[in-house]
């Protein structure tokens, strides 16, 4: 193991890690917005839109992110839509994550009994007030575990971004292996980088989930 070499390359990984993190953040925020919209459209059975959302969810969930990215990055320019590596990565993540988030939210919405909604209506709240004060707060609580699992899943999925020439962690590792043949060092730092990003998030999520499960309301 060439520790001097490791010392030299760490800054490359940090830079790449920050890039990965930034794109993941944007993609996840976008995915949450798309997911929330889609889940509400499906829950309220909005005509026409619910069919479109249904098709989107199936398309997105039944194809790999890598292929989605290739289509965005290599395919779309042929009809005049040029996207940078970064935009491709963000849009790809939103397209993929939106459907996963939608399913997580939807199962939360469906877990709220219809009669809870009726109970809200019966005290004279409007549909919008029922959604805001009764439906969503309860649905979100149910969705949290799936929601958090999706965030981890999406961060892991960012590892394929190197395929559309984004200089992320995988890209750096592959470069170092190819250029210097320092395979052990490159891989070690790669694994450590993902561990540093994902382990704390995973630990925090596990604790949050446990708190939520045992706390409930009023314990």
């Amino acid at each position: 193991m060439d520790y001097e070499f490791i010392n030299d390359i760490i800054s490359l990984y940090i830079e790449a890690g920050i890039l990965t993190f930034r794109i993941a953040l944007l993609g996840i925020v976008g995915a949450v917005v798309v997911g929330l919209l889609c889940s509400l459209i499906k829950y309220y059975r909005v005509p026409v839109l619910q069919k479109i959302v249904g098709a989107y969810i199936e398309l997105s969930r039944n194809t790999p992110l890598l292929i989605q990215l290739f289509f965005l990055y290599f395919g779309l320019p042929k009809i005049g839509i040029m996207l940078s590596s970064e935009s491709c990565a963000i849009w790809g993540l939103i397209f993929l994550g939106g459907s996963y988030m939608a399913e997580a939210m939807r199962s939360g919405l469906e877990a709220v009994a219809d009669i809870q909604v009726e109970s809200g209506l019966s005290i004279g709240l409007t549909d919008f007030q029922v959604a805001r004060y009764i439906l969503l707060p309860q649905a979100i609580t149910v969705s949290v575990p799936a929601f958090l699992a999706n965030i981890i899943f999406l961060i892991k999925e960012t590892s394929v971004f190197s395929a559309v020439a984004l200089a992320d962690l995988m890209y750096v590792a592959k470069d170092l292996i190819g250029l210097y043949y320092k395979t052990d060092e490159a891989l070690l730092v790669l694994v450590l980088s993902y561990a540093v990003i994902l382990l704390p998030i995973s630990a925090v999520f596990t604790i949050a989930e446990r708190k939520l499960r045992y706390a409930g309301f009023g314990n």
Partner: protein
Amino acid sequence: MDKEKALLEIEHLKKSYDSNIVLKDISLDIHKGEVVVVVGPSGCGKSTLLRCINGLEDIQGGDILLNGEIISNRKRNMHLVRQKVGMVFQSYELFPHMTILENITLGPVKAQKRNQSEAVSEAEELLRRVNLIDKKDAYPRQLSGGQKQRVAIVRALCMHPEIMLFDEVTAALDPEMVREVLDVMLGLAREGSTMVIVTHEMQFARAIADRVVFIDSGEIVEENTPSIFFTNPDTERARQFLNIFEFDAVKGVKNK
């Protein structure tokens, strides 16, 4: 003249789900201050009747009027109607993510846009009346079934409804908790609240009702005063229905 007019009028109400007819042709007037108890076998449509009155179900024929105004099948401003019609469900349906006080003040503050502190003080007053003031900051899951149901009644009352609907409110309760809920309702009746009560508690029905409505297979079979209905009903079907609640001793009694 206006005093003669019914508070709630139901005229030739029809309700069906696809081909399944639940309510055939229901006509019923309820006057201010009256307590009407609706009884009937399971699945006869009595709960559906309450849900129609509160606009939780569309109806397929007839009209429902409150203060002379048609309230059935309205698409707009139904929430304003519901603010005048209180409903208490069998399964309480308190909101699990809110404290007792928040449950009660949600409607007055958000739906009726009333002043927060005024709503809170009224809610506290009502909680005191049902002996639950010490639970105001608790969450629903910390309460017993009987306590939850009393809170649900208070939640509906705090809206100052013109009429209250009770849908089998004791059916999910342990026997020893039934009484505390029924006592609250008896109190309301004494104060002159207008109430429509669906129940299987026959003793209670007899005590509280001004009028008993017996529904079977989606139609009103008999309407009568409680004393006549429970002792000597006019119809054979009512007699058979009431027999279900009687038991004869099986053993040890010969030649009664």
